[in-house]
């Protein structure tokens, strides 16, 4: 790879001039978005600003109409969620992360079950899966009663934590959190924010998507603001006050 062409190797991911059209509607127009290595990047914007569309392009749910994506300085075609996952991009969605009727372990390993095979016979290594689920959640600071408990009996914060713990366990390089705290109590939000710091300390890069700057102000290293499908700007921590950021999100201030 020609390094001169992509000198900013401090980025884990770079999206360049991304545009996305759905029929006649333009959802994104020439969006540049970078996530610096081992930093928490907040992606801010009002409802309908294009945050979800941008992230869904990064996670392989949508294909961009135009534009390029570089992951660890290599150009990549992310045409399915599996490709994104294989690259090390893990996403925690706000309400569709876990299956409530299934146990913590079964959720933790969903789609990546530990299976042993003997000829045509295959079976789950449930004991090993339980053990790994428990130990890796404890490791990231999440205490659960029993890994065989159904997820539905947990609180919203606990569920969010498990989804984050799962992403970290499976070796994510880039952790994308879609409105991770919008449905949580203050105490639970604080916990989730501590897991995000923990993830960063362990070398992960994080994208924190939210429409409310108060949720991410504490943990973010930088902010990228989207409005009407276009980038308003990217700002470093401390460059703007919370009020400035809020004004940029709504368009009260142009930039």
């Amino acid at each position, binding site marked *: 790879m020609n390094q001169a062409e992509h000198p900013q190797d401090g980025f884990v991911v770079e999206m360049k001039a991304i545009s996305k059209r759905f029929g006649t509607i333009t959802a994104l127009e020439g969006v540049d978005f970078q996530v610096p290595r081992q930093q928490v990047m907040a992606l801010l914007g009002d409802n309908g600003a294009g945050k979800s569309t941008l992230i869904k392009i990064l996670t392989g749910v949508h294909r961009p109409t135009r534009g390029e994506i570089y992951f660890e300085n290599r150009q990549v075609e992310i045409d399915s*969620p*599996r490709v994104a*996952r294989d690259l090390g991009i893990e*996403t925690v*969605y706000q309400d*569709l*992360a*876990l*299956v*409530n*009727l*299934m146990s913590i372990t*079964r959720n933790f*390993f*969903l*789609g*990546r*079950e530990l*299976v042993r095979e003997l000829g045509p016979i*295959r*079976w*789950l290594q*449930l004991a090993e899966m339980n053990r790994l689920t428990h130990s890796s959640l404890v490791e990231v600071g999440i205490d659960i009663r029993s890994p065989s408990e*159904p997820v539905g009996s947990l609180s919203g914060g606990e569920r969010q934590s498990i989804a984050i713990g799962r992403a970290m366990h499976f070796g994510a390089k880039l952790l994308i959190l879609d409105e991770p705290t919008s449905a949580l109590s203050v105490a639970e939000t604080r916990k989730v924010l501590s897991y995000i710091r923990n993830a960063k300390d362990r070398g992960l890069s994080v994208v924190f998507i939210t429409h409310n700057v108060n949720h991410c102000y504490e943990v973010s290293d930088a902010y990228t603001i989207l409005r009407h499908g276009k980038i308003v700007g990217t700002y470093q921590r401390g460059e703007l006050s919370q009020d400035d950021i809020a004004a940029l999100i709504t368009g009260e201030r142009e930039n």
Partner: protein
Amino acid sequence: MTVVTSVVAGWRLSLRRLLLSSSVIGPLATWMAIFVLFSVVASNFLSLRTVSGILNAATLTGVVTIGVTLLMISGEFDLSVGSMMAIGGYLFGQQAAKGTPLLGLLLALLIPAVLGALNGLILIATRIPSFIVTLGTRSIYRGLAWIISGGALLQLTEDLPIYEVLNGRLEVVDKLFEGANFRTSVVWLLGLLLLVQYLLIRTDYGNHVFAAGGNRAAAAAQGVNIPRVKLVNFIITGTLAGFAGVLLFSQFKTVRVATGAGTELSAIAAAVVGGALLRGGSGSIWGALVGVLLISTLRTGVILLNIPFIPADNFEAVVGVAIIGAVVFNDWLRRRA
């Protein structure tokens, strides 16, 4: 006093754990209650003859119910199973008449498997709810049964050894117990139950089945191939329906175009009585088979009781009451847990 309270609390805790860990406990309790009730009020109920009769009557619906329950857990319905049962019966019977029953068995499994795949493919291609898709194919496949048979009843008189294997008398057991009249289909049912239960609980595929019905979007986000899971479940369901047709023919040596009509609803009823959720994501093969047994027990018991207004051909009304009652009771048990 505290000892008593803590013992009761401990008991309630373990009951809770039991109910949470296994959805089969509720339906099993209901079934046992009904069984005991009939044993007391119907003098000729508690006998090996009756018990084996209840089991035999449950096996054909049972085989179909295994597939239907698997499919319901993944969030889909199959209303075409009764029609595929008739097709399986004809394909097997016609070849048996020609002296090639093994080819017949193969066809009776293969063609319904293809029809099941067709159900799945229509669902995936059109995104129409499977309830509607299979409401359509239910009639189409019934028409196919008519085409295969020319509309005629198929009835054979000659006995073939293969009938004995598939659904003959289970002499080993029957000789041991005076008055028992078990059939080999019970063994097939048990084998299939264990196989599908294993698939559901002990394999990654089973994990994907629960996830597909429990939260489709979450499962897809984790890389689970939802269309594939549903397609495979439809194929399994079709194959089992065809096999039920084979078992039916092996027992009665008769098949009509209307054979199996109504089985689709009995299977759904049994699955729900057995703790399956109509919206998917939860259910148990064991529970569903207890559901089949429960309905079969009621049928037999009601017939034996000989209640006025509810002769043998009006037991459906009682079954209807029981379905609602059992689901309400299960729900109550679960809520208390």
